């Protein structure tokens, strides 16, 4: 079971794609032409001065090791409950096409990715979307905990026109964030395309009110650095950055998904009372309290007042209890039991001992032997000593959060007492 090539599902389709593997994958047609335009960027010189395509795999892996190091260096409280407003600038500057196809489209695309990532990392947190258009701010979605409703609103028609106003946006957001419970962290993330702000009053005052209400404001600019944005972020403890290109923008926005270390100090630990409703059978019919209509199919029943709600997480309309499901909380437990970084197997060891070392990755069974039966770079788990390929290493630490080797061996697991 160690011939990697044979495992490929569809040989022919694979061959066509081989060239743009890694950078052409999952791209739209227009993006691919864009990628082709900059084909020189994917070349590097080797020792003898010849041009070679960049070894993406090694590059990705190096990037990932760096992320892993910074993540383990700054261990912060992860279960923080954040209330974040994402403010999207839809002034006419957002229609500019220096980002392809336009700044607006690029922002919408990456905000969607950001929303999913945000809820993965902050399960009990809430997001609201606000847009600025014609100098007026508009609440696209209220604060809510379900990614789907935000994404749906984003996919709707977003048109750009007029000026932009930071003050109006801050005023609106301040009004909403002042109502949230005190254990929550108040944050605003402004994605700003314009180079100016057209305000009805004194913006400095607004910045001070935000500071007083402990609202952390961050800005990601899409054009150039602006003083007022920098001032806003400095005053409120947020971060200010300007994106150079699309991939840089994606990197910058995803940096806001994990809770920033600074806000941990604002946190007041508290116990929050919550209910865990059960999901009813798909065939049941009940009147829900959120839409006030009879609905067939699964819903959730509030354990305190037995009212029916359609979606979790939510607040019971009748008794005010916060309702969530236990898997929702479990999403963040991997932070409590982080998986150790794997060790890189040194090249000298590989060359000396490669006959004795495992030939296939423990996770995916792909061969760990490269061209000419030379061993490929690999990593090993310090606990179970199994070897993994670099792709699995990244997947295991960034998405799965389990070591397949450790999980598939029984070691002092307590004996179960009862059958369920």
């Amino acid at each position: 079971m160690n011939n990697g090539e044979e495992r490929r599902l569809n040989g022919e389709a694979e061959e066509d794609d081989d060239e743009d593997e890694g950078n052409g994958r999952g791209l739209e047609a227009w993006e691919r032409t864009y990628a082709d335009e900059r084909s020189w960027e994917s070349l590097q010189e080797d020792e003898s001065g010849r041009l070679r395509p960049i070894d993406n795999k090694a590059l990705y892996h190096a990037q990932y090791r760096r992320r892993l190091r910074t993540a383990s260096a700054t261990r912060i409280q992860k279960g923080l409950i954040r209330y974040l407003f994402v403010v999207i600038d839809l002034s006419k500057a957002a229609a500019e096409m220096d980002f392809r196809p336009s700044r607006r489209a690029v922002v919408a695309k990456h905000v969607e990715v950001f929303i999913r990532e945000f809820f993965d990392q902050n399960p009990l947190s809430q997001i609201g979307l606000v847009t600025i258009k014609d100098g007026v701010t508009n609440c696209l979605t209220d604060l809510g905990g379900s990614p789907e409703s935000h994404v749906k609103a984003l996919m709707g028609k977003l048109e750009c026109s007029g000026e932009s106003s930071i003050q109006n946006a801050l005023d609106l957001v301040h009004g909403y964030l002042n109502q949230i419970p005190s254990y929550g962290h108040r944050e605003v993330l402004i994605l700003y395309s314009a180079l100016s702000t057209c305000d009805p009053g004194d913006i400095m005052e607004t910045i001070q009110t935000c500071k007083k209400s402990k609202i952390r404001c961050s800005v990601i600019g899409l054009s150039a650095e602006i003083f007022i944005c920098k001032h806003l972020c400095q005053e409120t403890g947020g971060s200010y950055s300007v994106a150079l290109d699309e991939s840089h923008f994606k990197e910058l926005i995803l940096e806001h998904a994990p809770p920033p270390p600074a806000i941990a100090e604002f946190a007041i630990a508290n116990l929050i009372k919550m209910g865990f409703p059960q999901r009813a059978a798909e065939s049941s019919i009940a009147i829900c309290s959120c839409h006030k209509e009879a609905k067939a199919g699964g819903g959730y029943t509030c354990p305190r007042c037995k009212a029916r709600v359609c979606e979790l997480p939510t607040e019971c309309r009748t008794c005010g209890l916060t309702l969530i499901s236990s898997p929702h909380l479990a999403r963040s437990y991997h932070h409590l039991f982080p998986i150790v970084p794997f060790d890189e197997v040194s090249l000298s060891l590989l060359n000396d001992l490669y006959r004795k070392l495992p030939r296939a990755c423990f996770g995916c069974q792909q061969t760990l032997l490269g061209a000419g039966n030379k061993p490929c770079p690999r990593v090993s788990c310090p606990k179970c000593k199994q070897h993994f390929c670099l792709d699995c290493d990244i997947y295991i630490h960034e998405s799965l959060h389990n070591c397949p080797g450790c999980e598939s061996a029984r070691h002092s697991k307590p004996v179960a007492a009862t059958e369920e």
Partner: protein
Amino acid sequence: MAPAPSKLYADDVSLLMVLLDTNPLFWTSSYLPFSNFLSHVLSFLNSILLLNQLNQVVVIATGYNHCDYVFDSSLATNQGSENGRMPALCYDLLQKLEEFLVKDEQLHKEGSEKGLASSLLSGSLSMALCCILFYDLDICTASLCLIFRRFFDQGHSIHNPGYVAIMNSIFSAQRSMVPIDSCYIGSNNSAFLQQASYITGGVYLKPQQLDGLFQYLSTVFATDLHSRTFLQLPKSVGVDFRASCFCHKKTIDMGYICSVCLSIFCKHHKKCSTCGSVFGQAQSDNESASNLKR
């Protein structure tokens, strides 16, 4: 929690990762002997490979002490054996499975642990998800099929070591949009498998008539994800989303949650036993103030 967003399936080529429960302690006491069970499963695997020549099947055995790949249709030797009386699939799989079971028993003897414990579902799930990573999900649709005999379950608490690992796998599958189908052979429903299927958008099934296991498997799990949208598949009979408190491991439907680490407690404590946070009383004053403002 909303179920996984469904992807549009253009093609009906499927990659099926089958996780088999081979925990010998469960099968001995069964009214469905393991050999009968295997013949049902083998027919099922064969029928999937016959449905579309591009379909692929990978089987991972989940034992008491370890997990391993026992079959991969892309690597099948295709020679059959013993005068061609047995098709390649059965021969390969049975041979590997036998090796697997022998090794599992050896490991069992080495470890001196007594008593029944659940199979290593978290291990085989993790392996399967790593393996799926290497298939191009644009040209085929992957699904995980769990066939489990019985499941021991200490409740949904982080003190149950399997719990966090299994939930991690489920969320990772959800992110990759890989549905987890589960066929559970046992007397009560398994909350774990119900949640796994619900969260990832798969089907959970507890067959009533074990003699007709093949029928269940082939009508429910053999259908590719594209065709499922046209079918009336078994509907869920409700999912248990209750939690267990970290202090007494009781199943509760209402409780307190630490706002820092999200630990669950059944009653009010002064200090969080997981992360050590002290819960201030000043909090409640602020709270009422903000409530008044509303």
